[in-house]
């Protein structure tokens, strides 16, 4: 991390170790479970988390992989926006 609160595309982010990320069949959605909390993720958020956090890639690499699914669209600003939010909420943190 170059700066404590600004994410960079070259960062590798990981899931907060106290969080669990999984598909929940009855809800038909991905969820984040953490101490006394639940977040239901929409399909886009879940896809970004899955690609840009759960695979150990840098944010830029994850975004590039995602772009392949969407005809090479430029997703960087959307991804960064979500990642900033997830970081601010403490769902994800920089890999140490």
């Amino acid at each position: 991390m170059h700066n404590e609160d600004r994410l960079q595309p070259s960062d590798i982010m990981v899931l907060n170790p106290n969080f669990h990320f999984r598909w929940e069949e009855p809800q038909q959605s991905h969820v984040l479970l953490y101490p006394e909390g639940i977040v239901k993720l929409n399909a886009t958020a879940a896809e970004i988390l899955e690609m840009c956090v759960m695979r150990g890639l840098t944010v830029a690499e994850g975004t590039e992989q995602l772009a392949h699914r969407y005809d090479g669209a430029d997703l960087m600003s959307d991804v960064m926006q979500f990642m900033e939010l997830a970081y601010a909420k403490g769902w994800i943190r920089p890999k140490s």
Partner: protein
Amino acid sequence: MPKAGSGLSLDGLGMPLWLVVELTYKCPLKCPWCSNPVDFDRYRNELSTEEWKDLLREGRRLGSLQLGFTGGEPTLRKDLEELVDEANRLGYYTNLITSGVGLSPQRVRDLKRAGLKQVQLSLQSCDSELSEKLVGLDVFAHKIEIARTIKAEGFPMVMNVPVSRYNIDQTEALIDLAADLGVEYLEFANLQYYNWALINRADLLPTRQQLKQSEAAVAAARERLGKRLTIYFVVPDYFDERPKACMNGWGAIHLTIAPDGTALPCQEARLIKDIDFPNVREHSLDWIWRESPAFRRFRGDDWMKEPCRSCDDREKDFAGCRCQAFLLTGDAANTDPVCSKSPHRYLIDDILLEAENRQERAGADALIMRARCRS
């Protein structure tokens, strides 16, 4: 419990996402704000290990995700580890809500092995003298030892502080203690006035000035500590103009099972005397949640009266708390009297005024401690 201020309004698609199991009402502590029924000793007919396991399976089938083991003191049940193990296997995120009394370092390790995910430990004060006054037993040193063990075992931990006028001035010291212990979440749970807390309300309510100072200390600490420590501040709703969005609505996402198997939309609901709450020994959980008259009684907003019926906030606050409406106005379908639009708001204002003007007492001696004789 969902945290006030989390800003999350969770659509559970009609499923009981939060399952709270009160394994027993027994507890060695005597907290004068206990949320258990005042006549807790009447409910000795606790569900067996197998009955709890059946219930956990049914809960998962209904879509429950978060599971809270609570009480009374849940660690008094010898089968806690076995139930945690089963819950973990079923896919719940398992939370233990405990006073720490009844836990030993070895038991903390056993629970970790059984798959427990998180521990919420209550702490009433940062010094042993006040702690003993408030809970009736000398358990402070033990609680701290257990807190350290919980962290050493790698659990995420919520330190829960039930806040009254007796400990609210320790806000800053409690924050320092939480930071020192390395807990992730600190919850200042200003008391909600039901059951035992209601009996002691006149004595427990903080003053507005105390509340303001406490909030300022929390704000400063959030600034200072950042992501190291998440501090929840559950406001005492009496001091608010708008009612709390209690339970995210009646029968919306919360399901509590009392020690005797009674199913409740919240842990206090049993105090609404004119509702016959169903029991898991007699009905399927599916029927209880979807069909039972008790759970349908205040679901949605068809039941609402004025001023809620025509109020735009009804989808945000669900008319507040049914239990509070029942306790203070005599009718659970009334608007929560905390709401400034309620014709009963004066009741709350009178209570607050009384707290501001009460004579200062030296200690906590006036409190009526939780005890069996009261039952």
